[in-house]
């Protein structure tokens, strides 16, 4: 049975500085999304597009400005504190930076055992076993060798594995990971994505990955899963991952994919990477009009400056927000 | 370079402490500390050793009952050339009465002519102060303070009236009081804001030196060319350095920065100073006071004579003296009778004295006394008959280093005898507070001090009526057994006061008082305090008199008077 785990309805995020509207900064605009158990979802966008903000709002680390968020069908603003205590551990978050998200002076055992004690109420020998089990699961082996080590004894990939293991201590149903591979080495990135795939397959965990590496997104959603492309806090394209990444419709997505390096030297040498008109990240205020991408888009028209395109369905599992698609 | 400069000009460098800023107005901000005696003159100086009055502003005086007629010196001029007259004296008296509320002992002051003033006093007790106090004669020259003179006179008058009415137990009307307060405040406001320096550009004074420059750390006085001794005087300027600490003064003496000072100095330091500066000489003269152990009689324990006696026998006063101020006159193997050792011969015959108990260290005797009184030694600690240990603190005024050293030694001696004794420092500024509120057990204090009127009466008054009595609460109205029967010290003092000029009678009474003091120990004198006077002979000035010279006995309570005399008479003069 597919259970609806997280739902965002018309979520907006505005950072306001003082009362002057001009200084308000729209970071997320009308975000709608649903997440079911066992889903894979990738949110793609460049720096400053609002990916982190979206992820943090999803796990309730940050308040939204407008809209509603539901966890397991319940509006999170109306949760009793008991419900909150029960529900929030089910939705876990993995930080981008595996160096900062682990306590530097706690042993690996302690990092895993403390939340286990607290959430699963396990003690003694069981605690030890469970810890080992978790470490094996994320591929930190030999597990008992690492138990008394500190995070700095691990490589970047190892640390990210540890952070993932820690997020598993609450037995979550959703894991939202914010750029989990951006701080780790190329050659290890694949293993982390593979790990997420495994968790998704074996435990039916819903996984939300925030990525800017399109190749990784494609690899992750290859078997199943959706992709959301964010631009200027807006979803500009959304749908089945492999479809969008192989056949993008929105001009931004196109440029993005076109810019991604490819591993064919012959092709690469001769291909012309499309250049945008501007590389600035747009700052949207409540007064901004038009499509956020219009200032950089190579095929913009007057309409784009005036009217902000809505997300519309162009085929099954594929929605685009562009006047020309 | 400073050495040369100083040597070339004819000046004397001294040290004292003064509250800065000084506006040239002794009723206003600040003051001049020791420089006072160079600027203002009393009617006369008094030499305790010879009992002689040295005329200053007064050439002569006649005492007639409560009236004192003072003949002013005729050739006295202020440093701005104005003549000093009876009007100035009257104005000064009005001023101090109006602004300080003192001395109401002067009922009235009148000028007979410009050189004769007549004072009407409330009692003859005040004569000595009248003649010798530096404030009464010359503080407020009329030509300087004329703007306030009338007002001052009025305020002084009302103030006196209120005072006398109160003394006589009469009622003082509210209205009168209010009127007084209002007028006195008004005057005070005006006078306080008055800067003589600013208004006159100088401070006209009657003394031999006029202040010309007063800063926070140094003070410069220049010779008063109109002074009656000007022709004899060979020193032009006096520079005062601030006496910021004893160490600073030591250092200044070594480095010839100052010419004379009287800081307490340990023996070894003195030796070393002589090595470093061979011109440095030291003499010591009596400070006309003694350092004593005083008891708080409000605390039950000290009412026990046995305890006090034992303490007197436990202490080795020689050692205490050595440690704290080695030049002082030792009292070891001596009496505790309230007379200064250096003056003793004048007042008590040797033969009579021998009948008194001598206190020299004798621990066995002390133990014996205690045991007889029911004290017991237990575990090395003496206990009272009620079982409590003999436990007390000795308070000592922190800033005086000789006192602190003495206290440390006393504590140690009592401790090793088996008393539980601790030492407590009274920090600067707190002495008055602590002593007066009786917040002490035993303390180090001046016992008898004779600086005022050098007569045993002064000392006994202190012990049984005055400052010390107030602090200790010794029951001086009670009667004490003496060879002459039961006597109360308070009564004896009254008697002595009445027979002050009857030498034989007075001696008799003094003997009785001495006996009581010695036997009943309201205080235990430790040593007779001396002023160790250090001077650089032959660096800037020379001519310092011999240690025996009676002039030194003028030093206690204002050593600058001695310097003033020495300079004025040309005894002290610049090196060639």
């Amino acid at each position, binding site marked *: 049975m597919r259970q609806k785990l997280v739902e965002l309805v018309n979520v907006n995020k505005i950072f306001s500085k003082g009362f002057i509207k001009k200084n308000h900064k729209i970071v997320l605009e009308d975000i709608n999304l649903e997440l079911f158990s066992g889903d894979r979802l990738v949110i793609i966008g460049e720096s400053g597009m609002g990916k982190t903000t979206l992820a943090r709002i999803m796990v309730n680390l940050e308040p939204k400005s407008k809209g509603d968020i539901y966890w397991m069908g319940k509006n999170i603003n109306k949760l009793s504190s008991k419900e909150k205590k029960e529900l929030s551990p089910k939705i876990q978050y993995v930080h981008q930076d595996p160096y900062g998200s682990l306590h530097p002076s706690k042993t690996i055992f302690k990092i895993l055992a403390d939340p286990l004690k607290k959430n699963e109420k396990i003690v003694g020998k069981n605690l030890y076993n469970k810890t080992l089990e978790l470490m094996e699961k994320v591929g930190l082996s030999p597990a008992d060798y690492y138990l008394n080590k500190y995070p700095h004894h691990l490589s970047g990939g190892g640390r990210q594995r540890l952070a993932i293991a*820690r997020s598993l201590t609450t037995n979550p149903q959703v894991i939202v990971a914010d750029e989990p591979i951006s701080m780790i080495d190329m050659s290890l990135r694949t293993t982390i994505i593979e790990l997420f795939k495994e968790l998704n397959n074996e435990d039916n965990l819903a996984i939300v990955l925030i990525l800017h590496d399109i190749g990784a997104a494609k690899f992750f959603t290859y078997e199943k899963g959706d992709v959301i492309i964010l631009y200027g806090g807006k979803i500009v394209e959304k749908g089945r991952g492999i479809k969008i990444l192989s056949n993008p419709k929105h001009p931004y997505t196109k440029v993005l994919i076109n810019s991604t390096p490819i591993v064919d030297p012959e092709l690469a040498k001769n291909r012309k990477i499309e250049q945008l008109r501007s590389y600035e990240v747009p700052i949207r205020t409540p007064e901004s009009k038009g499509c956020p991408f219009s200032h950089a888009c190579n095929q913009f028209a007057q309409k784009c400056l005036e009217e902000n395109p809505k997300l519309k369905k162009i085929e099954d599992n594929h929605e685009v927000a562009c006047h020309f698609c | 370079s400073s050495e040369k400069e100083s040597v070339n000009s004819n000046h004397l460098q001294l040290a004292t402490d003064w509250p800065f800023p000084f506006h040239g107005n002794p009723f206003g901000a600040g003051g001049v500390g020791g420089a006072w005696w160079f600027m203002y003159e009393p009617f006369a100086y008094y030499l305790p050793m010879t009992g002689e009055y040295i005329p200053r502003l007064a050439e002569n005086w006649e005492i007639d009952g409560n009236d004192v007629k003072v003949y002013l010196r005729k050739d006295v001029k202020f440093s701005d050339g104005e003549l000093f007259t009876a009007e100035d004296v009257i104005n000064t008296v009005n001023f101090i009465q109006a602004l300080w509320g003192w001395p109401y002992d002067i009922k009235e002051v009148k000028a007979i002519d410009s050189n004769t003033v007549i004072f009407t006093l409330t009692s003859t007790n005040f004569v000595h102060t009248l003649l010798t106090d530096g404030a009464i004669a010359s503080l407020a020259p009329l030509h300087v303070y004329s703007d306030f003179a009338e007002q001052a006179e009025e305020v002084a008058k009302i103030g006196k009236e209120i005072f006398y009415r109160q003394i006589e137990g009469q009622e003082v009307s509210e209205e009168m009081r209010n009127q007084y307060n209002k007028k006195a405040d008004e005057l005070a406001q005006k006078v306080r804001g008055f800067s003589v320096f600013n208004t006159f550009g100088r401070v006209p004074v009657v003394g031999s030196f006029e202040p010309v420059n007063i800063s926070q750390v140094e003070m410069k006085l220049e010779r008063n060319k109109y002074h009656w001794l000007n022709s004899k005087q060979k020193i032009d300027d006096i520079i005062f350095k601030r006496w910021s600490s004893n160490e600073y003064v030591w250092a200044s003496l070594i480095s010839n920065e100052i010419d004379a000072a009287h800081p307490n100095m340990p023996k070894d330091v003195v030796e070393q100073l002589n090595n470093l500066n061979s011109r440095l000489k030291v003499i010591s003269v009596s400070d006309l006071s003694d350092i004593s152990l005083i008891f708080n009689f409000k605390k039950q324990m000290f009412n026990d004579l046995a305890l006090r006696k034992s303490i007197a026998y436990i202490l080795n006063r020689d050692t205490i003296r050595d440690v704290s101020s080695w030049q002082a006159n030792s009292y070891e193997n001596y009496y505790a009778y309230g007379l200064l050792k250096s003056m003793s011969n004048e007042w008590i015959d040797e033969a009579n004295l021998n009948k008194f108990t001598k206190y020299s260290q004798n621990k066995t005797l002390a133990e014996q006394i205690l045991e007889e009184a029911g004290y017991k030694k237990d575990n090395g600690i003496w206990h009272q008959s009620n079982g409590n240990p003999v436990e007390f603190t000795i308070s000592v005024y922190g800033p005086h280093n000789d006192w602190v050293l003495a206290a440390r030694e006393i504590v*140690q001696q009592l401790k090793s005898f088996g008393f539980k004794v601790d*030492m407590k420092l009274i920090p600067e500024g707190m002495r008055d507070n602590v002593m007066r509120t009786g917040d002490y057990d035993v303390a180090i204090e001046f016992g008898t001090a004779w600086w005022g009127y050098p007569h045993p009466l002064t000392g006994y008054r202190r012990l049984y009526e005055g400052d010390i009595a107030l602090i200790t609460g010794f029951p001086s109205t009670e009667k004490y057994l003496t060879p002459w029967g039961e006597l109360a010290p308070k009564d004896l003092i009254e008697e002595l006061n009445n027979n002050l000029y009857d030498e034989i009678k007075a001696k008799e009474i003094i003997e009785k008082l001495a006996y009581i003091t010695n036997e009943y120990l309201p205080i235990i004198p430790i040593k007779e305090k001396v002023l160790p006077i250090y001077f650089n002979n032959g660096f800037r000035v020379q001519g310092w008199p011999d240690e025996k010279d009676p002039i030194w006995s003028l030093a206690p309570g204002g050593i600058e008077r001695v310097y003033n005399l020495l300079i004025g008479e040309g005894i002290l003069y610049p090196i060639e």
Partner: protein
Amino acid sequence: MINNLKIFYHNYINPLIVNKKSLFGLCILGFYILMAIFGPMLITLDLNSNFAERYQRPSFKHPFGTDYFGVDIFRQIVHGSRTVISLALLASFFSVLIGTIVGVTRGYLDGFMGKIIDIFIMVFLVIPSFPALLILAAIFMDKELNTIQLSLLVAIWLWAPLAKQISAQVLTIKSREFIEASRLLNMSLPYILFSDILKLLIPYIFMNFVLQIKSTMEFSVGLMFLGLAKFEATHWGVMLNYALYQAGALYTVKGFHYLFFVIFNIVLLIYGGILLSRGVEEVFNPRLRGDQ
């Protein structure tokens, strides 16, 4: 438990022993602490003065010579170490305790309460501490304060800088991601405060504790010097006072060793504290030791 001890040893003690500076500092402090604890039991002291034997040169009988009263200086130093060291340690302890509590609270509280605590800290920063201490001491002068009260009195004027630093540290630690992770993992506030945050501050706090010893030493010596603390003849501050002011040891050739040995011990003790704190700083401050 044993494991914890091992880890503690490995993390905190071992690095200190390995570092030359802190080891030396530790030795000095350890020496004085031992002296304070056992010295007075092992070495007797006769305070009775013996004026004739004053200012004896250091010798076998009197390792530091005798003072102005003819009393053995070494023995006095030993007996005085107890007061000096207990006051210094206690006062440092209290100031660090207050500083930590206020600092951590401030770091964790935002908004109005935080601002208020800020002002509170700032107030204690701007009031000059030594004169204020003098006044406080004068106020309590006749109250016969015991060591604990006295050290509290000193600590009151020393905690503020630490509180300020700690609050800044907590503020940055608070925004570190592992704190957020702890919150997401449902960990309790005490866990976050004491396990997550305080754990990182321990080296820092320790460092400050050692650093404070210097100031408290100076303060307590100053207090005795000015006669505002309970008078103890063997307190080093009092000995210094005697040497410098009462006995004028600086001014005589004979008495120089009197002054010297007192100052020597004060300086050595403080120097030990400074060395240890330097060492602690090097060992625990990641910026100074590189990221190993």
